[in-house]
């Protein structure tokens, strides 16, 4: 199931640059892991709903209002921008 092409596609989806050696190793390891998780094929889940959350949760929303912002925290966050220009976070062009 896990061939080289699949590894390349998944790595692209995951935005991970892998060396040739890494790709070969991961192909082998993922194959082994997926062989193990095939165990789940034994389970009949036709009558079962998925349990996504850690407990019974329902979606919560709040009013769309700007709440108090801590300027100090904002500054600490900005101080860690890898590339900054003025007060802006600088990134490579998208187009």
């Amino acid at each position, binding site marked *: 199931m896990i061939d080289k092409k699949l590894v390349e596609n998944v790595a692209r989806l995951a935005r991970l*640059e892998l060396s040739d050696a890494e790709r070969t190793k991961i192909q082998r390891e993922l194959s082994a892991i997926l062989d193990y*998780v095939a165990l789940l094929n034994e389970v009949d889940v036709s009558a079962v709903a998925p349990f*996504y959350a850690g407990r019974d949760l329902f979606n919560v929303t709040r009013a769309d209002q700007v709440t108090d912002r801590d300027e100090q925290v904002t500054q600490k966050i900005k101080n860690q921008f*890898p590339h900054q220009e003025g007060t802006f976070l600088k*990134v490579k*062009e998208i187009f």
Partner: protein
Amino acid sequence: MELHQFSIKQIHQHLLQKDFSARELVGHYLGIIKKEELKIGAFLSVSDSLALEQADVVDEKIKQGQEISWLAGAPCAIKDAILVEGQKCTAGSRILENYFAPYDATCVAELKKQGAIILGKTNLDEFAMGSSTEHSAFQITRNPHDLTRVPGGTSGGSAAAVAANECVFALGSDTGGSIRQPASFCGVVGLKPTYGAVSRYGLIAHASSLDQVGPLAKTTEDCQIIFNTIKGKDENDATSADMDNSSVNIDLKNVKIGIPQEYFGEGLEKETRAIIEGVIKKAQKAGAEIRKISLPHSKYALACYYLVSTSEASANLARFDGIKYGLSQEANDLAEVYLKSRGHGFGSEVKRRIMLGTFALSSGYYEAFYTKAQKVRTLIKQDFDKAFEQVDFIFTPVSPFPAFKIGEKIDDPLKMYLSDILTVPISLAGVPALSLPVGKDGHLPVGLQIISRPFNEKGIFQIAQQLEKIL
């Protein structure tokens, strides 16, 4: 008695009686850290001056005759996946090697409010992915009981620090066993709370439907004090919940304890089995009714976990992209920024899990892997629901074996994953579990896993305290 032998309550009494100052206590612990770290390597960073400043604040309060809480002056360590404002928070990864926390995690804020003193940040497997702390990008942590062996993971630094007397208590995080297993390997008490009992705000996310912050300490009483401080609904974590504060009176004399056959199978090491069975007998002698139960879907839990947690992790780690913070590699275009920053910044275990999770969520595979795993998860949870209709607590070993040698499992990912086989079902079900040290295999600690129904941490603490007395 040496200063590092005191429990939280004892420290509190001694501080009030002015037998020693918070500054002296912190100084003592910093001295131990200086000495032990050469061997143990539990800490990624130590914040001496900050700790002493915090100690001075507590001492001033005592001097002024002001009231202080139980935790005031108690020195602790925080796993480096939990944000402490102004301190580095690396998640054990090169991608966050120079990242400074802009705010406190809620659990940390609660500890600070009570006057607890933070000595430093502890080592972990990168992004809390692993079972031995060997996947830290920075250093190995050694088990204080045997320096050739792992402390367990991913809260290995926290567990080792407590075991080596480098702090009174520590905070860790548990996604599939990451508090319980290192607690077991290092001979300390560790709690994975019910999912939602403790706010995850400020915990660097691994798997959002599984992660929980929890305490590690030498005694159950200490763990309970810390848990009571950090638990509760937090508006910054919509999955958190308030707990019923009514008191319970649980006694070994009138509880039903379930022993699931699936946790005592072939893979369980002989001595571990003997120790756990010994504890069960003692509980029975103290009056507990022991019942054989079955958690029939247990054998699927590990496979389920490694699809659910990796899928969630692949989404949670997408934010580490070289754009807003963390490692940002030189690149020619935007795509390269992502590819190179992540390629360089993440270690092999993290990459492996991101790949597995991305695959499980990808078009054409999503139903067969992710959705299927989440359905099996329902069955695993139902096993526990049904069990808790029959019994109040479930006793199992925490790990099929005690601490293994450093390097022993590092080259075989699947072998490493199998370390978690007894802890992951509990995480998937969202129920609480405590790891209690109950014996030694030679010189290696062995822990008992005490599981109960959601939000019954109080019951777990009571049972554990009673066991502590009779062991």
